[in-house]
C-alpha cells in the first residue's frame, strides 16, 4: 500500500522533507494550520499565540493532567502566503536542541485533494539525526518501561 506520509532524509544532510497528500481541498488544509482551535486538536497541544503574518510569532504549550508542562515550543513567522506558503522557525523550550527552520508549502492537486511539502533545516547533521531518532528512542523507552511494569507486577 502506498504510504500517504513520506519522509525523505538523505544521508549526511542537515535537512529532511515530509510530504503528505490530503483528501481535502487546499483551503481546508491551510485552515488547519491557521485556526488556533483546529491546530490544538490535531497537534494535541495548547496554542498560546499564533500570529499568521510576516514578523508574527507563535507559541505552543502542552501540560499533563497534573498541570506539569510536558512540551513547550515557539517560533517566528517569516513568510505567510495564504493557501501557499508558511516559512517559520521552531524551537523546543527547555530542550538541548537548537532552533530549526521550516518551509511549509501547500499545493492544490484537484478540487478535493491537496498536498503539503514540509522542508525542515537543522543546525547540523547530528541534530537532524537526533530529531529523526527521537520517536524511535521514545518507542524503545516506552517498550522498556512497559516491560519493567510487567516485570514488577510479576515479583
Amino acid at each position, binding site marked *: 500500500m502506498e504510504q*500517504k506520509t513520506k519522509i525523505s532524509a538523505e544521508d549526511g544532510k542537515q535537512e529532511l522533507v515530509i510530504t503528505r497528500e490530503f483528501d481535502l481541498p487546499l483551503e481546508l488544509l491551510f485552515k488547519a494550520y491557521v485556526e488556533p482551535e483546529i491546530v490544538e486538536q490535531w497537534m494535541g497541544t495548547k496554542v498560546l499565540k499564533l500570529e499568521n503574518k510576516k514578523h508574527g510569532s507563535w507559541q505552543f504549550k502542552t501540560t499533563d493532567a497534573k498541570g506539569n508542562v510536558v512540551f513547550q515550543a515557539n517560533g517566528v513567522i517569516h513568510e505567510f502566503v495564504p493557501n501557499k506558503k508558511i516559512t517559520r522557525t521552531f524551537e523546543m523550550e527547555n530542550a538541548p536542541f537548537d532552533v530549526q527552520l521550516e518551509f511549509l508549502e501547500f499545493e492544490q492537486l484537484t478540487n478535493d485533494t491537496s498536498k503539503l511539502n514540509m522542508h525542515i533545516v537543522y543546525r547540523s547533521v547530528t541534530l537532524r539525526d537526533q530529531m529523526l*531518532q527521537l*520517536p524511535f528512542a521514545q518507542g524503545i523507552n516506552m517498550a522498556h518501561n512497559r516491560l519493567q511494569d510487567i516485570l514488577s507486577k510479576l515479583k
Partner: protein
Amino acid sequence: MNLRRDVFQAIADPTRRAILLLVASQSLTAGAIASNFDTARPTVSKHLQILTECELVEQTQNGREIYYHINAKKMKEVADFIEPFRKMWDDRFNKLETIMKKYKTKK
C-alpha cells in the same frame, strides 16, 4: 539505552559499513575481511569487535576459525529507525484530515 546509540555510531563509520556489505552475502574470517582493506589488521579487528558488540554481525566458530556474518534481524531494526518518526507525522496528519472532513460537512 547506550546500545541503541552505539548501533548508529557503528554504522556511521565508512569502514564498518564496508565490512557489513562484505559479510552480508557470505561468512568470512577476520583475515579474509582484513584482506579487503589497506588498514592494519588490528584496526579491522577493532571494527569487527564494535559490530559484534552492537549485534550487527554474529560470530560462528568453525574448527579453529571464527566466521563473521551479518545479523539481518538487527539490520532491519536499524533500517526501520525512521519509521516511528514517519508514523508520528502520519498520525498527526490523519487526525488533521478527519477533523477537517467533519469541519467541511458542518458548514
